[in-house]
């Protein structure tokens, strides 16, 4: 009896030892993976935006999807302060339209906005064609069937699904490029955006640009248009108003593309706002409202556009004034504080150095 008990005890010990070692191995692998993955905390921060949505604690009436035209044109904090609109930008660097669709589906898992705003800038790309941008959008997405579908519809040649499941397979060679930020943010990452808005306070007046290269065809690709259809239908199914917009940036866009979007909007009874047509009404002055010579808006341009756009939204949709909802207002007070702190910090750097040092390209660690 005693011998049997001793044998059982040994077996139990072995099982426990094996389990402990297994857990230990996974912990080591998990740690190494966390360490090696890009953190997007300094310099190129756009890869952080996707996951920052999951830290939100308030409902959103308006959610904006798209690439830089989305996350560098609208300020949810300004729209809240002016009109009480609760909004979030689910944008990311060169977010392809299939990714916008799956990010919308991802949103619908937890909330149903009243208005979905799609920045049509990403229609210019038919298929996803750049792994780095895929990673910036998809790595931060929470695991679900939507993420699986987003990955499968986005992978470029040479990419593998398993490397999205185990990113260490992709980032393993970063071991000799690790920076202080990689070490600091192994276990937690700071919020870098303002409800998805990428803040820049520097000013670089608009420059002349060469004309756009003429194309044989200005049709959008079938793949991209199919996903625009999917977004439209998904909004329909969920009783969401779909609004198509284009940021007031003349650079990098063809007039014929506007015509395409206008025709689509007309065909399906959607609204398309090309803010380039309203630059004067918005009060934009691209000598002071852009930080990169006219390719993107800076905070001054963004706030002007947000006041204008927020007014349009409140006048045309039945949105809640969340300034009157204490639980939401208290969260937005924190957002406003963070917004003002970052703005003041950027302005201080600009006053001191004549340029941003802790933000944008200058902040990239080598």
């Amino acid at each position: 009896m005693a011998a049997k008990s001793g044998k059982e005890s040994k077996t139990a010990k072995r099982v426990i030892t094996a389990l402990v070692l297994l857990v230990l191995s996974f912990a080591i692998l998990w740690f190494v993976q966390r360490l090696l993955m890009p953190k997007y905390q300094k310099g190129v921060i756009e890869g952080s935006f996707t996951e920052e949505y999951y830290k939100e604690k308030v409902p959103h009436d308006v959610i904006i999807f798209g690439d830089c035209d989305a996350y560098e044109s609208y300020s949810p904090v300004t729209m809240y302060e002016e009109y009480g609109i609760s909004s979030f930008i689910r944008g990311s660097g060169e977010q392809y339209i299939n990714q916008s669709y799956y990010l919308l589906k991802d949103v619908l898992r937890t909330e149903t906005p009243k208005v979905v705003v799609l920045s049509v800038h990403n229609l210019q790309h038919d298929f996803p064609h750049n792994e780095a941008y895929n990673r910036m959008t998809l790595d931060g997405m929470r695991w679900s069937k939507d993420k699986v579908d987003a990955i499968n519809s986005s992978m470029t040649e040479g990419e593998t699904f398993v490397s999205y499941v185990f990113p260490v397979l992709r980032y393993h060679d970063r071991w000799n490029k690790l920076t202080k930020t990689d070490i600091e943010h192994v276990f937690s990452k700071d919020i870098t955006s303002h409800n998805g808005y990428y803040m820049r306070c520097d000013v670089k007046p608009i420059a002349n640009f060469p004309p756009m290269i003429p194309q044989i065809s200005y049709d959008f690709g079938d793949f991209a248009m199919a996903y625009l259809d999917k977004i439209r239908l998904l909004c329909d199914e969920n009783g969401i108003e779909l609004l198509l917009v284009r940021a007031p940036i003349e650079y990098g866009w063809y007039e014929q593309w506007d015509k395409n979007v206008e025709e689509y909007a007309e065909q399906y009874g959607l609204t398309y706002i090309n803010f380039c047509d309203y630059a004067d009404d918005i009060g934009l002055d691209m000598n002071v409202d852009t930080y990169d010579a006219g390719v993107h808006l800076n905070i001054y341009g963004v706030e002007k556009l947000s006041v204008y756009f927020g007014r349009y939204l409140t006048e045309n949709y039945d949105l809640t004034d969340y300034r009157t909802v204490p639980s939401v207002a208290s969260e937005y007070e924190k957002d406003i504080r963070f917004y003002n702190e970052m703005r003041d910090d950027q302005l201080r750097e600009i006053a001191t150095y004549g340029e941003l040092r802790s933000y944008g390209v200058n902040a990239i660690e080598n």
Partner: protein
Amino acid sequence: MRFTKAAALILSLSIAGMSLAACSNEPEPVSSDINIISTQAQGKNTGALPHGVVDPNAESENFVFKYKGCNLVVNTVVDESKFPDDDYVDFETTSCASPELTRRYEFKNGTFWMELYPGSESIYTIVICNDIVSTAEGIYIGCTADQVREAYGEPAQSTDALLLYEKGSSELRFSLNTNGEVDQIFYVGKY
């Protein structure tokens, strides 16, 4: 003792697994969070521009734009020291989510432009915007589509608004106005 051995084995396997991953034959990785190219790149609507293209045969096989004795050829490395005069300005712009800068040259107050591939020194496009300069084959702003055809033959592709020629790793695009006259000329690098 056994625990130590087993622990050593498991940890070794973990390390071996990671080493194996590190030795895989995947294509060049994302390489960090910053190896990204322009989202705002002009031109093609099917793909972003590569980091730069240098075609060793470009000088002999591509369309050449001659400016005051200086040959400017797409998909070759730009050499400012060979510019015939200093009547130009250059500036750089950033790209979305990228540390890379795209450099542009504006010659003679917008008479023609040259743009490099993002983050590189190789020429992507040359754009002629007024009739002060012409192509090496004598076509300038204001020429008719027929004159273009006479100089270059039948285009590889065309529409009412565009004649597109291909040679080596370059394209020559003549933009036409509603009167069928050339209003802009583009040398474009192929990649």
